[in-house]
């Protein structure tokens, strides 16, 4: 159901809780949590979280827990995105990670993310019993789903390849060909 595939685990679609475990590997009971997983980078990782959260309007809480990612400061960066948004250059305002830029999601998705979820800062906590208690508490604080899903589109390409016919040869590089006898030569202009 989540549009941008990744190394996350999907639980209950009706749960209103998503969990970002940062650099820690923690598992949760699937019935209690909508989606959870690790989050290592302050750019692509955040983009994937935002894209998937806004695709499920039931998600109203995002718990940040586990150990912060050194250098990337992914937890601090997603908190900054939620609090401040991005500037005109795509930089997350106030983020202290190494490369905190957003390039692959729309301004609409960012605005919706900021409105949709309440962040729960448990950075540094990795004990599942403590986090499970917070999940229980948040589950009791029901919020209504927010609007319609915002779905990032991934379309299958109709043609199998954009490559021109190479008559059984394999391209190693845009300017080089290797034939079945492993002879490498420059690609001809007419291929």
């Amino acid at each position, binding site marked *: 159901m989540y549009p941008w595939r990744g*190394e996350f685990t999907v639980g209950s679609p009706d749960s209103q809780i998503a969990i970002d475990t940062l650099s820690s590997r923690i598992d949760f009971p699937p019935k209690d949590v909508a989606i959870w997983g690790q989050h290592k980078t302050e750019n692509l990782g955040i983009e994937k979280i935002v894209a998937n959260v806004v695709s499920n309007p039931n998600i109203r809480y995002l718990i940040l827990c586990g150990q912060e990612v050194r250098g990337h400061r992914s937890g601090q960066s997603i908190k900054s995105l939620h609090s401040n948004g991005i500037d005109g250059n795509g930089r997350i305002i106030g983020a202290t990670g190494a490369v905190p830029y957003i390039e692959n999601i729309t301004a609409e998705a960012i605005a919706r993310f900021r409105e949709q979820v309440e962040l729960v800062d448990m950075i540094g906590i990795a004990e599942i019993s403590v986090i499970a208690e917070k999940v229980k508490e948040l589950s009791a604080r029901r919020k209504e789903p927010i609007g319609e899903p915002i779905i990032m589109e991934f379309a299958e390409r109709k043609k199998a*390849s954009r490559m021109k016919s190479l008559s059984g040869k*394999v*391209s190693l*590089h845009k300017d080089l060909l290797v034939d079945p006898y492993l002879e490498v030569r420059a690609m001809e202009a007419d291929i």
Partner: protein
Amino acid sequence: MKVEILEATKTKRMVKDPSGFFTIFVDKPRKEIVVEFYEPIHKEKADRTETGKLGLVVCGTSAEAICHTIAREELVSRFDHAAYLGRELQKAEIALKNKLDYTQDEELVIKSKK
């Protein structure tokens, strides 16, 4: 006939591929390897690739097929980058087939059979 023997050594400094970079992961529920290709975006310092624009997603179960697709799509421009991808994708395929955890750039932990 004289043939040289050369001891293999690692290159100390990685040179980034100007074509872009890849993230690789195993989608366990769908039993597939997923490769995301990002075109480089330079921020602040022009000589540094710092983040990327998602350009293509390649999925499959075979490292060989994914390598061939990446080559056909001309997504790499450096031999060391192509060799790196081959190594990582083979690790991902072994992980997929043997239900192991795969993390890009980390050693594949193979549990020995007792």
